[in-house]
Each structure stands twice: as structure tokens, then as C-alpha cells.
């Protein structure tokens, strides 16, 4: 047990979770108090002692599933009671169950689809699990030793199950069952309910695939392939849809944290000159003795921010996140103006002004901004020239200019004199590059030509790096 736990903790560390030695010891101590058969309690025990950040929960759960999932008998890959039971339900006990359990295999695809439909409609979890197992066995095309990740199998299985249609069919059934036609609200609620069941089924399928993979390749190899990055480590440029959603979710708490931290930093600066009035006032409680001198705290200027972002396909996600972040903490800046470009440039500040929902604004930026000049391939040089011509005179000594982009210029002229000029006029010029540092200046990337004129160029591939930069900024 101890060995297993040690391996588990090591894997958590490899997945990027900070687990300290004390926490390790706590976990070992804690599991002594929990009956090992109670899997849920066991899981929460480990979580409570080892995971101290709620956004790490998913990563923890994945590792936990891999390490502790298939120990119990009921998780054996051979078909089990639930499956048999489900089968009996479906057949009404009519068909003879030849050779113990081959009947499930003998189902035609139509019968399986029907079974899935029934399971979902009745929210029958045992049956859902059975269907998930059968579906994985049948559709995933899994072969031992094939070096393919779990997501591939998941995709294949789900494609064959055609869940969207199943939902539609169930909606039909619900509509028929209802006495009166459903109102829009009822319809929506039903749909949400059904979709949550489908989600549960997807999780079952995923778990089943994981079990197969672990059985095939062993725990350690599996832990490596299934490892999910923590939200703050997700690469902007290569995030898949699920990771994107995760990023979006973690952006909001991050902005709140940053805003609080920046506001505090501003307040708790150096001490300023003596505040005579406040000192005399506070001396009254000491009988007129100025026992507690009070000081005026200087309030540093809030910087003015110009964000100039490349929103061409390759880096669009990064630009979107950074814009969202900057606007979410715009209270910390005296003014925020934003410009986006591909090969043409457009100011998009107007989309953000007076808008409460930043997502909405970002959406409008993507659809309404006029950023294409010739062919819609990034041209930094031209975009910068346009910027300088139209807005250059507005850059002043309090302005901090922020460039976002990978500086992949499609071999156009760099026009880096714009940045040189800008640096003379502006307070700071920074560049954030979402590419890993080792790719810089390879191919058509000309970040080197720009970086000589910037005050700082930062690699900014994930939320962690973005967060660190924002603290530099304010």
C-alpha cells in the first residue's frame, strides 16, 4: 500500500501538482483512519491532504483513476453482473444466454443502439455502464500495443454512438409522453437533463477506455499518456476544446486575484512624507502625545495601456485571452486602448467600452474588426506602419505599449523602426510571444528584429506566464 501511495504521489508531482513532504506524510497518516474499502472516502482523503488548489482537482482525479481504479473485483474487464442484468432487462429473459455472456456480443448494432436509448431515457446507470463497455469493445478499434492516445479511441467510440441523434430521439419521446405540448422552458429543462445523462455516459466510456489501456500498457505508461496539464499550464496555441473551456473558467478567478493583488501593491508602497493632520488626530487617543506618526502613502500613477494584438488564426486564442485579462483588470490602469491586426489594423477599444460582458466584446472583435488589408496573412510591418500613421501621436510618456504576437511575418518587411520610435516616446514597450522560446527566429519569425527595440520580450504560453507578466506591468 505504501509503495502504491508513493508511486501515486510521484505521479502527481510529475503531473505538476506541488506536493510537499509534509503533505505526503499527512496522506499516509490519514489513510490509516479511513476504511480502505470505502473508495470515495479514500479518494477524498487523499485529495484533502494532497491537493490544495481546486483547479488541480481534475488532474488529481485522472491520476487517481489510473492508480486505484482497477484494483477492485467489480472493475474487472470481463463482463459482469450489471451487464448481464441489463441484458436480461432488454430481452425480457427470452433469449437463451448461450455460453455465459456472449449474448451481448451477439446484439446487432441496432439492438445496441436501442439499448443505449433505453438506458439514457430511463437514466439506468447499470445499463449505461454496460452499453459503454460494449461500445468501447466494439467501436474503439483498440489493439494491444498500439501507440495511440485515449482521446482517439474516445472519438471513434462516440462517433459510432451518434449521441446527438439519440438526444433528439429522446426529446421526441419526452414530447410524446407529455400530456400537453411542452413549453419552451420545460423543453429546455428536459434537454439539459438528457444532456447531463449523455455526459455521464461519455464519462463511462472514457473510464472504460482508460481501464482497457491501463490493462494493456501498465500503470506507469498510462499515467504518462493520460496526464492532463493543469489549467495554468495549458498551452494557448495548442489547447483543444475541452482545455479551452477550462482556460476560460480559470481566467475569471485569476483576474479577480490579480486585481486584488495589484490594488494592494499600489496601496502598500513605500512610506511617504508625514501626514500632520492624521498624526494629530490619532494623538488624541494618547492624550495629545503623538505616539503614532501617520504617513501619506504615495499613489503611483496608473499606467496607460495600448494593446496591439495579432489576431490571425495561429495566435488568435492567445490574443483573446490576453485582451480579456487586460480588460478584466482595466480598473488598475488609467486607460486601456486596444488595436488588432492581421495585415491591416483596426482600433477595437469601442467594442469594450461600456460593455459588461467581455466575451461578447471579444466576439465582436473577431467578427467586426476591419483587419484584412490584402490577403489576410499576418503582415506585422504594414500593420505597424498604419498604427504609427494613425495613432502614433497619441503614444505619450505614460503609455505602456504591449505587442501580442508570434512575429511570424510571412517574409514581409519588418518595419521595426516603428517600434524604435515608439520606445522613445512611450514609457515601456513589451512584447508577448506565445511561442516557445526555442522557436523564436526560426522560419519566418522575426522576433529578434523587434526585440532589440523592446524593453522586454516575454514568452507567454500559458496562464502562469501571463499572470507573472501582468504583475510586471502594473
Amino acid at each position, binding site marked *: 500500500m505504501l509503495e502504491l501511495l508513493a508511486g501515486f504521489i510521484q505521479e502527481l508531482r510529475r503531473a505538476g501538482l506541488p506536493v510537499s513532504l509534509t503533505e505526503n506524510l499527512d496522506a499516509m497518516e490519514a489513510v490509516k483512519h479511513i476504511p480502505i474499502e470505502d473508495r470515495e472516502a479514500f479518494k*477524498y*482523503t487523499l485529495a484533502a491532504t494532497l491537493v490544495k488548489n*481546486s483547479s488541480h482537482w481534475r488532474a488529481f482525479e485522472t491520476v487517481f483513476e489510473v492508480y486505484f481504479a482497477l484494483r477492485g473485483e467489480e472493475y474487472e474487464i470481463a463482463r459482469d453482473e450489471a451487464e448481464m442484468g441489463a441484458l436480461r432487462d432488454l430481452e425480457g429473459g427470452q433469449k437463451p444466454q448461450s455460453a455465459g455472456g456472449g449474448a451481448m456480443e451477439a446484439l446487432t448494432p441496432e439492438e445496441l443502439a436501442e439499448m443505449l436509448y433505453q438506458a439514457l431515457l430511463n437514466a439506468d446507470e447499470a445499463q449505461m455502464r454496460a452499453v459503454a463497455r460494449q461500445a468501447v469493445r466494439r467501436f474503439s478499434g483498440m489493439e494491444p500495443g498500439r501507440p495511440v492516445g485515449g482521446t482517439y479511441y474516445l472519438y471513434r467510440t462516440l462517433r459510432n454512438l451518434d449521441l446527438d441523434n439519440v438526444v433528439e430521439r429522446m426529446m421526441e419521446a419526452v414530447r410524446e409522453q407529455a400530456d400537453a405540448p411542452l413549453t419552451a*422552458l420545460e423543453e*429546455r429543462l428536459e434537454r439539459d437533463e438528457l444532456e447531463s445523462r449523455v455526459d455521464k455516459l461519455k464519462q463511462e466510456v472514457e473510464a472504460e477506455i482508460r481501464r482497457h489501456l491501463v490493462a494493456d500498457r501498465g500503470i506507469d505508461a498510462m499515467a504518462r499518456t493520460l496526464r492532463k496539464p493543469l489549467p495554468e499550464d495549458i498551452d494557448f496555441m495548442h489547447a483543444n476544446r475541452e482545455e479551452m473551456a477550462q482556460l476560460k473558467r480559470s481566467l475569471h478567478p485569476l483576474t479577480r486575484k490579480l486585481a486584488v493583488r495589484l490594488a494592494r501593491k499600489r496601496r502598500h508602497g513605500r512610506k511617504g512624507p508625514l501626514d500632520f493632520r492624521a498624526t494629530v488626530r490619532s494623538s488624541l487617543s494618547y492624550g495629545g502625545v503623538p505616539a503614532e506618526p501617520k504617513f501619506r502613502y504615495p499613489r503611483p500613477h496608473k499606467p496607460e495601456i495600448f494593446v496591439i494584438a495579432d489576431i490571425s488564426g495561429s495566435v488568435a486564442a492567445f490574443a483573446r485571452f490576453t485582451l480579456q485579462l487586460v480588460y478584466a483588470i482595466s480598473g488598475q490602469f488609467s486607460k486601456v486602448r486596444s488595436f488588432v491586426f492581421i495585415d491591416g489594423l483596426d482600433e477595437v477599444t469601442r467594442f469594450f467600452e461600456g460593455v459588461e460582458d467581455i466575451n461578447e466584446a471579444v466576439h465582436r472583435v473577431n467578427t467586426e474588426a476591419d483587419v484584412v488589408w490584402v490577403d489576410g496573412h499576418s503582415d506585422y510591418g504594414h500593420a505597424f506602419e498604419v498604427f504609427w500613421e494613425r495613432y502614433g501621436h497619441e503614444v505619450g510618456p505614460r503609455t505602456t505599449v504591449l505587442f501580442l504576437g508570434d512575429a511570424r511575418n510571412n517574409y514581409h518587411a519588418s518595419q521595426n523602426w516603428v517600434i524604435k520610435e515608439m520606445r522613445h516616446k512611450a514609457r515601456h514597450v513589451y512584447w508577448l510571444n506565445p511561442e516557445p522560446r526555442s522557436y523564436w527566429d526560426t522560419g519566418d519569425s522575426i522576433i529578434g528584429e523587434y526585440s532589440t527595440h523592446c524593453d522586454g520580450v516575454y514568452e507567454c504560453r500559458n496562464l502562469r506566464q501571463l499572470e507573472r507578466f501582468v504583475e510586471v506591468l502594473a
Partner: protein
Amino acid sequence: MGLRFESVADVRSDLKKVDYLADDGIASVVFLADRLGKPVLVEGPAGTGKTQLAKSVAEITGSRLIRLQCYEGLDESKALYEWNYKKQLLRIQAERNAEDWKELSDDIFSEEFLLTRPLLEAIRSEEPVVLLIDEVDRVELETEALLLEVLSEYQVSIPELGTIQAVQTPLVFLTSNNTRELSEALKRRCLFLHIDYPDLEREKEIVLTKVEGVSENLADQITRIVRSIRSLELKKSPSVSETLDWARTLVLLGVESIDAEQATETLHILLKYQTDIAKAAKELSTNGA
């Protein structure tokens, strides 16, 4: 250390007696906190029953609840202890001409002149205590250090008096709304519990136990609507307490089953931002296809 609970299931059923419906995670962590004698750091969105958990645990264990509300600028003299300097002054003046200074100074730094604040009080209490340190993320990073000694050793060091050890180990709950990252040192000393919005079944059960006169059917509808609303991207998702408020309102209005119109009209109880209300109202009147 006196054990308060027999098993995880025990915690659950006890909590249920005082109308707090705990899930597996909550019950396990509370049980562990008791067994390991460690504080619990409870985190999660506002209005999911973090503070209520501490209150309920105090109630089922028959302990006194001592609460320290954190805020920016909280310091030693508000959290730990303070010397009652007025009383000390009086004492000095009363004995002005009599004794020598040494004796006097020993005297005025005795427990008689100590004003206990929540943390010290929890430590010194003879009877069992549940200590609730509410919204610990509001204090500055530096002030957090004040808590460390209490949390790990259950003791308070007062330079003039020495170290005061806890008479009994209090159960400690810290709550945080996660407005900032807490320090590693603090997290390391605590068990971590994240309380999220409850799932459909549990929320329905909560509505049924907490709201009088609500029918099974209505509770079901309420929680389903709330789940739909939570799946939207909102500034502030409805919390459990807001769900309860909404349920109470609907019961008062004599609603038996909710239609879209009633839902939209009473949305302001569930949501607090105008933009959120508009968005939810729009979503609820379309069928989500």
C-alpha cells in the same frame, strides 16, 4: 485528543440531523480533521455553505463556536490578544509610591491584564470549541503568519507570559472565497476541502429540508432551472442560498409549477446583475437547441 466521530458515515448522519446535507467529500474531511487534529481550509464559491458547515459541526459536537471574521488590516491585537493598557495604567497609578518597579511590572503583565481575542480564547477554553476563521483570504499575506502557530501547534506565545498551550484541541475551520492565493505555509498545515455547487439530487434534497411547504415537484423544477442557469456564462452564478431564497419566494407566491414567465419575473432573486438576468431570461425562453 477526544474523538468526536466514529466513522465517516457517522459524520454524515449527524450533520443531517441538524439539516446540513453533506456529501462524501465534506463528511470525509470533517472526519479526518477530527482524527488527525488538523484544521480544515474550506474553499468554494460564495453561498455554498462554507460557514454553515462550521456552525453545524459546532452544533452536533455540542461545542462552542468562536468566530474570527477576517478583514484587511486585521492584526495581532484583534486576532490573538491585547494588553489592557488602561487597566495597567490604573494599576501603576494606584501603586505609585509603594512597591518597587520589578514587582509591579511582573504584576501588570499577568493574565489579569490580558484581553483575549478569538484565537487565544479558543486555545484557552476548557470546553470543546469549534474555531471558525472566516474569509481568511481577506487578510494580508503577512498577517497570515499570525495564524500559523495556532494552526499547527495549537498554542500562542506571548512574550511577557510565555507559551499558552491548548487545553483541548479545537476543531478549526478556515473559509476562503479564493480572492487571492493563500500562502503555501498555511495550506500545508490544513486539510483542503473544496465545496462546489451541489449536484442536482443533493440540491433538491437541500431545498426540501430547508424550505417549508415546498412540494417535491416544485423542488425538482427549481433545481433543474438553477442547474440550467449555472451552465450559462454569468458574472455570478446563483448560490445555494439564493436557490433557497428563490424557493421560499415561490412558495410564498403559491406557485405550484413554474412557467417561463414566473421564472423570468422572479429571476432577480436568483441573480444579482442586470446583464445576468437579461441573459438568463433570454436563455430560459428559448429551448436551448
